Structures are given as C-alpha cells and as structure tokens.
C-alpha cells in the first residue's frame, strides 16, 4: 500500500473482483439502472483501475457526440444560458465525512455513515437495511456477523454484491473490501462471512432472491428480501 492508504479510493491493489465491461459501458453511456449504477459508482470510488476503465468508456461517448449531426439551438439560447449562469448558486463540493466506513455514493443513499443506517434484524444475527431507489432495482445493505452463513439462495436476475467492510467466501472464492461479486440466475451459492468484524455488503438485485429452504421462503414476503 502506498502513503495514500488512509484515503478512500486509494490504490486498492487488494481489489480482486472488478466490474464487467458491460456494466462500466452502460454506466458510462447513462443507461444502467439505478441500483446497479450505485454499485458501479461505489466500486469506482474504491478502485482506480475501474475508474480508468470507466473513463475510457466515457471517451467513446465523447467521440460519438463529436461526430453527431449537430442541431442548431434557438437564437436566444446563448443569452438564456448566460442568464442561467448568472442566477446559478455557487458550486458546492459534496460533503463526505472523514473516518467513514461507507463510500460517498452509499452515504448519499443512507443519508450518513454506517452509524446512521437503520438496520432490521432478519435472523441469525444478520441485519439488513433497504435503500430506496426510484426504479425496480432493489438495493440493500447487509451486516453479517463473522462466521455466519447467509441462507443458500439463487437469483432470477442479476445480483451484484459489493463488500464495504470485512469479507465473505462462497464455494468459489473470497471477496474482500471493494470486491464485486456478479451472480446470475445460474449462480446458487452460500456466502459465509469471514471470522472477525461484521461483513457489510451492498447487494443489488432486479428480482427477488430465490431461497432453497422452506422457512426462508415463507419468511421472504415479510422480510422483503
């Protein structure tokens, strides 16, 4: 780690699981759905490699816009724009608390840091908080005590899970701070939080999770997962 290690978004050489090209390209194009966009924005805040990849996808957009057949504006458009500029409030930088656990994009949704999250117990020491989106993607924060397993589940759509604290393992791999797990309907897995501090994850789906056991299935509508 370099001397910037205390900064968020530092050279996170530990990030092993990155975003896919398709996710970065649709975020860059502005077509990605909200919940997935939150995962992209958060991961990019933690990973310079993916930030550079995203910015190269944005360069494609810049090139395309450069070569588009331009459409003239109305005659008074420049004056109207100058009037907008004169009336605009001074630019404000986004305020992000120092010593935080949650990266800026997640803080925007929580309205604060980890201490401000309004958790609900979902059993086995696991807690979750639903973060509201304006579209059909479903965003949750999970807090899983070290050593605890999440219920075995499959997916109907795409599920992205981003680790914000601690780590978890499933049958295939280990996911630590900043890592993104991309799961599709073909993935059936049982993530287990690593021993140690609680594992905090941001999880986004576009369809309800599919649990294998009967009890989680009955509880599902009540838990909202």
């Amino acid at each position: 780690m370099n001397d910037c290690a205390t900064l968020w978004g530092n050279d996170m050489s530990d990030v092993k699981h990155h975003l896919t090209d398709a996710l970065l390209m649709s975020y860059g194009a502005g077509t990605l759905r909200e919940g997935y966009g939150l995962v992209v924005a958060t991961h990019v805040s933690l990973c310079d490699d993916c930030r550079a990849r995203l910015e190269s996808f944005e360069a494609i957009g810049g090139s395309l816009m450069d070569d588009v057949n331009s459409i003239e504006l109305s005659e008074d458009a420049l004056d109207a724009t100058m009037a907008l500029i004169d009336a605009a409030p001074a630019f404000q930088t986004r305020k992000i608390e120092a010593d935080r656990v949650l990266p800026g994009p997640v803080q925007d949704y929580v309205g604060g840091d980890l201490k401000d999250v309004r958790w609900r117990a979902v059993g086995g020491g696991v807690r979750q908080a639903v973060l509201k989106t304006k579209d059909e993607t479903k965003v949750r924060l999970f807090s899983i005590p070290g050593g605890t397993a999440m219920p075995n589940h499959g997916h109907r759509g795409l599920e992205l899970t981003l680790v914000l604290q601690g780590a978890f393992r499933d049958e295939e791999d280990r996911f630590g701070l900043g890592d993104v797990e991309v799961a599709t309907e073909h993935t059936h897995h049982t993530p287990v939080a690593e021993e140690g501090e609680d594992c905090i994850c941001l999880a986004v789906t576009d369809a309800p999770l599919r649990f294998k056991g009967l009890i989680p299935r009955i509880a599902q509508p009540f838990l909202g997962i």
Partner: protein
Amino acid sequence: MLTAIANTEQVDQAGAIRRLRRIRSSKNETRVDMKEKAAANDNWIALIEKVRDAKDRAAFAALFQHFAPRVKAFLMKSGAVESLAEECTQDVMATLWTKAHLFDPSRASASTWVFTIARNKKIDALRKMRRPEPEDLTWGPTDEPDAADVMSLRQESAKLSAAIAKLPEKQRELIERAYFGDLSHSEIAEVTGLPLGTIKSRIRLALERLRHAMG
C-alpha cells in the same frame, strides 16, 4: 505462357501498388484528421481554462457554438423532444461554466467531459431516476495536471475517434445504440477493436500522479 504469367504478375503488382497507395492515403487522411481533432481539443481546453480562470464570456460563447448543437443532437437522439432538448442543453452548458474547475484534461478530452455532463442531464431529465455518482478526485488548489499526461491523452482520444470512424457500419450502429439509449447492459457485448487499453492505461497513470499529488 511464361510471359503471360509474368504479365499477370506485373498487373498484380500494379494492383498491389495501387491498393497500397490507397491504404497509405487513407492512413494519411486519418492522420490529418487525428491531428485536427487533437488541435481542436487543445483549443477547447484553452477556452475552458479561460472560463475557469477569468469567467471569460467570449471563450464561453465559442464553446457554446461548438458544443451546444452537439449536446442538443445527442439529447434528441436519446429520445428528448426538441423543446426539452433545448432546455437541457442550456443547463448542460451552464454546468460547463460552473464546473469548469473540475475539468481534468489529463483524464478526459473536452468532448468527453461535455459528454459526461450531457449524459448526467439525460439521466436526470429523461430517466428521472437518482443518479449515483462516484466520489470526485479533485485537484488541490496548487496542482495542475501533468503536461505529458494531457499530451498523451489527447493523442489516445484522437486515435479512439479515428478507430470509431473506421468501424464497420454494423458495429458502429451497435455502439451508437448503446450510447444513445436502447441497449440494455446485458445486450452489450464486448467492444472489440477499439484502442481502449491504451487510453485506459493513460488515464490510470494520470490518476496515479493525482493520488501522489494529494498524498
């Protein structure tokens, strides 16, 4: 018989030379085009700096004249009716003024930066969803982007534009659909043949220098 073969070879050779000349001249055209694009980008960067440092209205008017009609076209291609596109374009250009200090020419060309502002406006006005944004990496008060980074990024951006211009029609169309709006992320296949690797490593380098400056 032998002569005939020799003749054919000569003809082939002549053809090959013609083909080579054609390729060379198209390469030259691309090179000229790339030079022009890079030079234009230098000009836009200088104008954005004037807006940032001196609130220069003439510089802004020149930027407006170039970028506003392109932003409007982009928004209309993305599904905005003309009146909405006009209104949003004015907002986009006003944002260019208020955020001029955030433009980093070692990480984006002027066109790319304007595109990201227009894209954000498209999401806000057309899609009406919240727009999660990464944390900014802003310059400290005294830091200026490294001139060598700015130079290499300008070259890579020009190369990328040239590569996009030369794509087969079908592939180009697909990329346009991805950026102007109706391809879902699962429909986006890998983008092959575009020199994204080099542009990415240039941006990566600029980010490293920025981190170093901030640390």
